[in-house]
């Protein structure tokens, strides 16, 4: 069997009447359906789900992942995403029925272990952030941003300063930052970057004012650079009456090295699926808890866990912004982050960050003579190259990204941040061996050479993947978002 063959859709494997999983026989006396539910409420056609055997399902969903890259498959230097190794023992831990088979509305006395876990993790994340209180409600980083901005807004409103509706966001920020601002009704004020890749402090001074709600900052920023002026930036924003929001997307660089709270941040979100190694799962689930200072704690989304003596209980913070989702967040996800913290301990977490930074600098240093390095500084856990010099060979960064697939590597993040032309953002993470980094360096240098000698090799890449380059324009022009029996094999 070759991987090149098109894998049929599970629907295309269907045979009428075939069955997989079977339920036990119905053992209660039956009442005719129409006596229980009025006929006009009932559907006449069942949903057209596949009719396949269990083995067919297993084979199908074993063939599909063979057409997929993952950290377990190979190097995944996707900048800003922190694709580190996901310890397998974590999967065992959250499969314990005492965690996986508990109901969110069980009486609190029957879930003291779960509440203790939530409480402990909240404390540990606060310690890492250098702040006071945590809410584990948000389900993802962007959800954390939304929740954190709601907290900031509620704080200003509570103080009668509801007119503060301008959020400062650097031009290098993740797209989620401005999008989250829009979701709380904030106006985005873009802050330019300076020549060293940090916030332009002089510009910031002019942009703050009586309507400033705060500043959202990723530090190290999306260029992988630590903003040296962070304390001054915090002072400027605080003096203007604004609050500082820390986008934790890049927190893998700073554990035990810098605590955001110490540098003036009032709200932090962590991406537990990045820094704390909960698996990304092909796009989720993640967890985006927020940690805030004492003065913002009453506004946190709830419920949160409180400890009374040796008992744990769920409470709503006094002026809570409310609920941002049902129940208590992605419990089985953040439980893995708790395990991660415990297995590393304080020195281990610092070592994680130090190694992530070392690996990034090592790779950057070995590539800067064949790619453009727009900001020549020591980087943190990731760095950004530019592929703009390849344009003269008719090669774009996208082509380089595709060519990397041929060598079994996932591409870096490309075309982000927006302030670097043809950006290539590389984040090796700390769990990669030096030999892997060396192989990657070798391949990147080889591809840079290919771009000059044989650009077509890049522009027609990838060549060794399950499918060749995918026509994205066609997908967007004529969206086909579901399978239909009559449309199979055609458009």
């Amino acid at each position, binding site marked *: 069997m070759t991987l090149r063959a098109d894998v049929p859709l599970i629907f295309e494997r269907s045979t009428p009447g075939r069955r997989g999983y079977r339920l036990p026989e119905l053992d209660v006396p039956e009442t005719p359906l129409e006596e229980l539910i009025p006929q006009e409420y009932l559907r006449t056609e069942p949903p057209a789900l596949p009719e396949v055997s269990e083995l067919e399902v297993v084979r199908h969903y074993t063939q599909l992942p063979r057409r997929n890259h993952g*950290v377990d498959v190979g190097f995944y230097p996707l900048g800003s995403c922190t694709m580190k190794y996901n310890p397998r023992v974590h999967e065992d831990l959250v499969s314990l029925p005492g965690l996986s088979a*508990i109901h969110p509305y069980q009486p609190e006395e029957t879930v003291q272990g779960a509440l203790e876990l939530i409480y402990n993790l909240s404390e540990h994340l606060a310690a890492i952030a250098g702040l006071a209180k945590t809410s584990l409600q948000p*389900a993802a980083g962007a959800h954390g941003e939304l929740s954190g901005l709601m907290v900031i807004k509620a704080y200003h409103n509570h103080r009668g300063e509801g007119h503060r509706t301008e959020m400062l966001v650097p031009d290098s920020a993740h797209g989620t930052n401005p999008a989250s601002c829009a979701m709380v009704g904030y106006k985005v004020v873009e802050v330019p970057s300076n020549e060293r890749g940090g916030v332009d402090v002089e510009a910031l001074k002019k942009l703050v004012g009586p309507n400033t709600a705060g500043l959202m900052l990723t530090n190290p920023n999306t260029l992988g650079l630590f903003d040296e002026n962070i304390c001054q930036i915090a002072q400027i924003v605080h003096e203007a009456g604004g609050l500082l929001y820390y986008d934790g997307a890049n927190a893998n660089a700073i554990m035990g090295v810098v605590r955001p709270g110490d540098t003036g941040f009032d709200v932090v979100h962590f991406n537990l699926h990045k820094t704390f190694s909960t698996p990304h799962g092909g796009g989720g689930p993640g967890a985006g808890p927020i940690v805030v200072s004492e003065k913002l704690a009453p506004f946190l989304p709830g419920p949160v866990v409180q400890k009374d003596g040796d008992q744990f209980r769920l409470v709503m913070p006094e002026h809570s912004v409310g609920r941002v989702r049902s129940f208590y967040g992605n419990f089985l996800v953040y439980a893995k982050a708790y395990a991660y*913290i415990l297995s590393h301990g304080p020195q281990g977490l610092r070592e994680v960050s130090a190694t992530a930074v070392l690996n990034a600098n090592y790779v950057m240093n070995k590539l800067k003579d064949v790619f453009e390095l727009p900001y020549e500084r020591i980087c943190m856990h990731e760095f950004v190259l530019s592929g703009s010099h390849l344009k003269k060979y008719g090669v774009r960064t996208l082509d380089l990204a595709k060519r990397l697939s041929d060598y079994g590597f996932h591409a870096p993040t490309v075309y982000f941040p927006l302030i670097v032309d043809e950006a290539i953002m590389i984040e090796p993470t700390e769990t990669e061996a030096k030999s892997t980094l060396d192989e990657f360096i070798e391949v990147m240098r080889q591809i840079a050479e290919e771009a000059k000698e044989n650009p077509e090799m890049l522009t027609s890449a990838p060549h060794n*993947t399950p499918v060749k380059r995918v026509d994205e324009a066609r997908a967007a022009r004529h969206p086909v978002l579901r399978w239909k029996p009559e449309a199979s094999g055609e458009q």
Partner: protein
Amino acid sequence: MRYLPLTKDEQQEMLASLGLEKIEDLFQDIPAEAMFQGDLDVPGPLSEAELVRHFRELAGKNKDATQLVSFLGAGAYDHLIPSIIKHIVGRGEFLTAYTPYQPEITQGVLQSIFEYQTMICELTGMEASNASMYDGASALAEACLMACAATKRELVILPATLHPEWQAVVRTYLENQDVSIVFMPQHAETGTVDLDRLADLPWAEAACVVVQQPNFFGLLEDVAALKARIHEAKGLLVMAVDPISLSLLKSPGELGADIVVGDGQSLGQAMGYGGPAFGFFATTDKLIRRMPGRVVGETVDAEGKRAFVLTLQTREQHIRREKATSNICSNQALNALAATIYLSVLGKQGFRDVGYQCLQKASYMKQRLLEIPGLSSPFSAPTFREFAVRGQVDWVEINKRLLDHGFLGGLPLARFGHPDLVLFSVTEARTKQEIDDFVSTLRGLIQ
């Protein structure tokens, strides 16, 4: 450290290649006043064996559904979960992949999402589905915001019969964008939306009306009247549905819904103390460009072979930034995959069997419970998997005593303002024996 592969020698070699001596030199850009001195106040390090022991201890302090017979529902359900799901979602290529931004090496995830989208369309009768949301409640909040954007209106009509936590989530999202909420009252007798009191509602200003089916009390709502009202006023019909009920009930698409959301926990997901499961989100072709979240489309590769790819990305935050349809980025892809496997292995007939058994078992238990003197049915509308029972007893206290008998009783609705009501859920996982034992135990406790 267990997960850090660099040897001391390699570390020194790498530092030397950078012209540095020690690890601290890497942090020279960090100003002294920003540096953290000392050790973080966290415990550890623990070895794998110690970690497992600690988690076993924590888990051991909880009572779980393998030890107790559960009749709790209200948004999380103890359904049967086919064994193959955990084996497949545990595969490293699914588990440890990021969002499929490079389609040539992520066809596995992309195709599984395309299959998921198709299944959600089949269940809901809608034309398009996204790749998943955080959960049902936040999906409903996003649906309301989408309706506001599509109609350029700033008011939504919610049913009083909507799950109180979902109401709370919708309120949190909407009040931050200054969208008003008006409630449709509950009919005292049927327990569903009071259709006699619709006339006074501000239909002409409403972006949408929301219906939860079945509603929080497990009752089936009559959607037709609400659909007529809102469509006449050029607003949208948003339905929040229980996916298992769609095995038997008319699809929202057939009922004229414009946006359909729901929580997917019932579809092969662990209860996990409330998460992670996933939210689903489906709509019409007309509205797809306003839909939040990621979506996968079919296309071809350079050789003309079928391939899948993330599409319609210009709606999303990484391109449109503050003008995006939502800020959502990470979703609940692995949970959506679990649901896809669940629906595949159950299949057309098996999925119907789940719904049918839930209905029959819930109905049986309802009849048996209502034979107990002092208990009555508070509402007259038909029910599906859940139902409320009225009784002048302290349900919280009763539940404590049920625990001693190995039962997790229904949800006392006192916390939601109904002191004499309790909400039971009965899934296909319950047996007649368990139901009979529960009924006789409860009878004993009440008398």
